[in-house]
């Protein structure tokens, strides 16, 4: 029999004894896991495609269009669309602090009449919205790279003259 090169063992390195199919199975498992991650990415699990949450009440229709999952460094937009079915004299949008936590708020369009804190929530005064008219408020954010969150509350209230007209419950997950 011909000399086998040094440090090689025929049973192991040719016949794969002791290696068997385990290595292949592990390799396939890891590849499958990586492929599954890519599929989850396609399915918007890791963001940042926006989704709409809509509430309709006798006074107005209120919808929030924003991503529920984002990643560190992402730019994102939130759109708050109010259609008044009745006249709204002092419309306000109240946001949970989760909207600003670990986020840079780059733009608010149009500029609200006033901004304040309402018991820890972010308050934007929109003013008068006549019956049948719409008001769209845009907020543009960038997610801070160190921000991490799992289902952080981002509830939104539509308020008129201190009375809550509509409540939208939503959360945001921030992936690293």
């Amino acid at each position, binding site marked *: 029999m*011909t000399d086998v090169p040094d440090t090689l063992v025929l049973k192991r*390195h*040719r016949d794969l004894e002791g290696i068997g199919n385990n290595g292949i199975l592990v390799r396939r498992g*890891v590849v499958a896991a990586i492929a599954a991650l890519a599929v989850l990415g396609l399915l918007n699990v890791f963001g940042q495609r926006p989704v709409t949450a809509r509430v309709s009440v006798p006074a107005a229709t209120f919808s929030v269009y924003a991503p529920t999952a984002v990643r*560190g*460094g992402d730019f994102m937009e939130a759109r708050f669309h109010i259609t008044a079915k009745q006249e709204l004299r002092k419309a306000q949008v109240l946001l949970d602090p989760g909207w600003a936590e670990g986020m840079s708020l780059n733009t608010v369009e149009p500029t609200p009449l006033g901004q304040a804190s309402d018991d820890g929530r972010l308050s934007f005064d929109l003013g008068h919205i006549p019956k049948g008219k719409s008001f769209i408020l845009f907020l543009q954010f960038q997610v801070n790279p160190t921000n991490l969150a799992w289902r952080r509350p981002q509830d939104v209230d539509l308020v008129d003259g201190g009375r809550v007209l509509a409540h939208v419950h939503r959360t945001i997950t921030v992936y690293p």
Partner: protein
Amino acid sequence: MDLVARAVFVFAFMLLLTRVIGKRELGSLQPFDLILLIVLGDALQQGLTQDDYSLTGAVLVVGTIAVLQILVSWLSYRFPRTRPIFEGEPLIIVEDGKPIERNLKRERLTVEEIAEAARLEQIAHLADVQWAILETSGQISFIPKK
């Protein structure tokens, strides 16, 4: 702290990736593989340092990766049982001029690829090869018949 954690994660992920990609893919850098490598590096860098342009950040990331690389190298030296995990094992793919089909299939290698590698070593016929070994680096080494 974030940067170091990111560097550890990226290092572990890259180690895992290089182990599952297969030896041959790593050993044979075709033009497309080279481009892929550059794209990969760019994608990783963004996840690693993001908007951190600081010298401190660069030192932290490079330092962490260097320490991890030394650690892996030390582990595989000090504990030989971990070597197959970190580096893989050589695989005999030709014996006495005959390709070993089972082992070729395992590494997704074709006889044509072995013949090409043999030609690069001035070996015209696989029949002249006593042993061909797919090394852990992905290179194929040939030992001709005497």
